[in-house]
């Protein structure tokens, strides 16, 4: 048994980005912090790994869009090696006929009407503005309703004020659309099917929803809501892949004195009486702590590591009922050269490509998922990070990373049988846009939600550690009673994407958790 200085010792389960951010802030404030990670490298779902000899790819999240600028500054991530290989990626909506649209900032270029171009400027304006209201919540500990606590009331008042300050027309529009589906909003604003398809993609990425599902506007707003110095929703590719973000965070954390132990799966959270007193590792080692902060998802934390029997029954039931069905798969291709996409110049492969030709296409793709099937014609978000960052592939070679929707966590017939057929479905689809892609693919790796669940230890393979929706946001995330990072179990805290404000590699949940701990 390792005897660690018990006083002020905090153990963090999981060296994902939120765990590292939380650790760094706690250590900065003078706490003794140990981060315990199951995988052999830090980063969780913000990681880079080799998937074919010489080919490296961001294994889960593959674009940086929300990393909090205050965290970057406080932890001096640039001095710890974080740099961008490419910033402000455009989105290219791939047309089935080779006629593509290029969306950059508030500009749309390609075969669209001038009315759509004007409408898009307005759409960008109000979406960015509404996203700011949500973004302002990211770095606050969620207020509680009816707690009688003054600071809770002030927080709630601030939110009401932020909405009111939108002005009459924007406030009405915000309240009208924030909870509804993006299908209706896009239909109201645009004519181009291809533009609507590409924009709808932002409303369904990583969510168990189609464009016609309620909450898809909120998903799109959340994606634009990062507290960054770039325009809302700007996309970047970190040099060295997403793992570079985690490496910089780990380096910053270590500088502040954090001890990080990798390849140490936590078997369970240990209790003494009604208090959490540490963790037991899979190898039987006991690590004592005054507080345990879990960066694992809420179901893994409470029902797995702690055990429902150590919770009161109502709370355990609430955790069980949280929705965490991942339905996005990842496809990684190792390529002998850049494929040729019909109608695209080679350098345009450095941008973000979207295959979602229209709204119905995505909705139909989602229909399959509802019934435990993968999409016959999936919607894709594709990047070729090696175009901007040669370090990821051998010279002259390239890697492709695509988010593929939809793939259910539980496939009818099982993924063991269905995975290679699904990979073929996606490759067949890609061939329609890039006829030579198969011939250039040296190796393909498909990560189904089940694989993502296993590799990243996320229940349901859900990259937000639980559906990010209005009913699981702010003081409702993950559930009331645990939404302020402290949990009903003495000495146990949450700091992961399952807490407010969710995933998306922004780090805010980790920092808020540190704030909540330090305030106690």
């Amino acid at each position, binding site marked *: 048994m390792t005897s660690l200085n018990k006083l002020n010792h905090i153990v963090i389960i999981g060296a994902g980005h939120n765990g590292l951010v939380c650790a760094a802030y706690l250590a900065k404030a003078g706490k003794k912090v140990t981060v315990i990670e199951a995988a052999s490298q830090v980063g969780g779902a913000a990681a880079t790994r080799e998937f074919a000899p010489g080919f490296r790819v961001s294994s889960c999240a593959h674009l940086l869009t929300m990393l909090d600028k205050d965290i970057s500054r406080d932890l001096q991530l640039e001095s710890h090696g974080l740099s961008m290989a490419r910033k402000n990626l455009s989105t290219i909506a791939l047309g089935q006929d080779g006629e593509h649209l290029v969306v950059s900032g508030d500009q749309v270029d390609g075969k669209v009407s001038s009315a759509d171009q004007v409408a898009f400027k307005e759409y960008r304006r109000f979406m960015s503005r509404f996203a700011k209201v949500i973004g302002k919540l990211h770095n606050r500990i969620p207020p509680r309703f009816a707690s009688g606590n003054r600071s809770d009331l002030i927080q709630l008042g601030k939110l009401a004020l932020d909405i009111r300050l939108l002005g009459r027309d924007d406030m009405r529009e915000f309240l009208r659309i924030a909870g509804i589906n993006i299908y209706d909003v896009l239909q109201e604003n645009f004519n181009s099917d291809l533009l609507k398809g590409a924009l709808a993609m932002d409303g369904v990425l990583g969510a168990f929803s189609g464009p016609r599902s309620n909450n898809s506007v909120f998903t799109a707003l959340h994606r634009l809501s990062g507290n960054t110095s770039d325009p809302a929703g700007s996309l970047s590719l970190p040099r060295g892949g997403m793992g570079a973000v985690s490496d910089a965070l780990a380096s910053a954390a270590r500088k502040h004195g954090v001890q990080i132990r990798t390849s140490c799966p936590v078997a369970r959270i240990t209790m003494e009486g009604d208090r959490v007193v540490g963790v037991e590792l899979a190898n039987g080692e006991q690590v004592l702590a005054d507080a345990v902060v879990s960066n694992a998802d809420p179901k893994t934390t409470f*029902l797995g590591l702690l055990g429902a*029997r150590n919770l*009161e029954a109502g709370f355990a039931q609430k955790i069980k009922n949280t929705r965490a069905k991942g339905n996005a798969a990842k496809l990684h291709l190792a390529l002998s050269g850049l494929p040729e996409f019909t109608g695209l110049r080679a350098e345009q492969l450095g941008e973000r490509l979207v295959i979602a030709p229209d709204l119905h296409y995505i909705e139909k793709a989602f229909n399959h998922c509802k019934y435990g099937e993968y999409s016959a014609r999936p919607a894709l978000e594709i990047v070729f990070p090696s175009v901007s960052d040669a370090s990821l592939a051998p010279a002259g070679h390239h890697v492709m990373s695509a988010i593929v929707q939809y793939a259910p966590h539980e496939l009818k017939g099982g993924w063991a049988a269905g995975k290679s057929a699904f990979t073929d479905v996606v490759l067949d689809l890609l061939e329609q846009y890039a006829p030579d892609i198969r011939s250039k693919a040296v190796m393909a790796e498909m990560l189904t939600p089940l694989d993502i669940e296993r590799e990243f230890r996320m229940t349901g393979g859900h990259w937000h550690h639980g559906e990010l929706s209005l009913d699981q946001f702010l003081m409702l995330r993950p559930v009331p009673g645990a939404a302020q990072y402290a949990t009903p179990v003495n000495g146990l805290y949450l700091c992961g994407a399952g807490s407010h404000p969710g995933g998306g590699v922004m780090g805010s949940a980790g920092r808020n958790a540190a704030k909540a701990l330090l305030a106690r």
Partner: protein
Amino acid sequence: MKTNELKARDHFHHHVYPSPFHSRQAQANKQNVWSRWADYLSVPTYYDTSLEYFSARNSCGVFDLTPMVKHRVSGPDALAYLNRLVTRDVSKLKAGRVGYAVWCNDEGQVIDDGTIFHLSPGVYRVCSQEHQIDWFMTSALGFDVEIVDETHDVAGLAVQGPTSCAILKKMGLQGVENLTPFGMQSFAFEGTQLGVSRTGYTGDLGYELWIDPEHAEVLWDRLFEAGKFHGIRPLGSEALEMLRIEAGFILAGVDFLPAQHAVRPTHTRSPLELGLAWLVDFKKPVFTGRRALLAEQKRGSRYALVKLDIDGNKVAHDSYVYTRDKTFAGTITSAMWSPSAKASIALASLEAPHGKPGEELLVEIYYQRELKWNRVMAPCRVVESVFWDPPRKRLTPPADF
């Protein structure tokens, strides 16, 4: 509960079941008035409420408690499960013993109360007033435990009163007199097993008999045959209501609102507010409601459920309770004229800080005399001891008759 068992039950076609004792109840039910208790027909009064009451106090009353909701809890985690479910420490309940218990939601508000029978090592029966299978299953997450609603599989009779032991002995239950209060034992009976527990809802010497429904009628017949010269009488629910108020027992839905029925969350009660602090064992590290109850203990309770001894002979049904300077202090939940205590007695839910033993209060009683309404502000006081507590309740072996 297994799905196939649910399907096999066609209870939704029947609005209400006849009890397995129905044929015998029908013969004895001179009033021919029936009421409903949970899933079953029940008898409010067989012939005369007062006489039935006195039979239980002076000889022996027999009450059909088949409708009581019963659950079987077993499996490797049965004890751990029950300990997380209820507020008391079930590990102290040895096999062959029965314990009273309450269970709460996370807010520390009482969902229901009931009795836990430790039937054999690791196998328990939990009786409750309300259907609890949903909450029990919800609470089972993370436990290796089997929970079955066995309400319809077990027939029950309460045999209560001073001659009850003598009657059971006469029926052939040798050694039944050695059962201590809250003890239980199984007897061979007519080719089946008859479970006997020294428990009841009357605050007197008494037993509860548990048997499979096929043997219900023969049990009834043998019992009444054995008690022929010991004043045995069937007991209806109205007489039982009198007996339980005298004994100071609370009733779900009457003295407190079961938490899962509450629309207004402030209308529920915690065990501390029901005078059941003795049932709450904070030494257990985890049980549902613990966190809220610890907070309540620190902050102070909102209510106190108390026993009132009221001057005069008017019954304080549904009355308001005031302080002596006539400020509102609470309401009556159960009231009666107690024939045994010769007093108007009541259970009342008082707002904090009222309810200290000995506190002098007023009860505003409205009563009719020949259709004319009258009002009296009756002085009353909070009392600690129950209104009916005879030594024979505890005496082992009980006196013979």
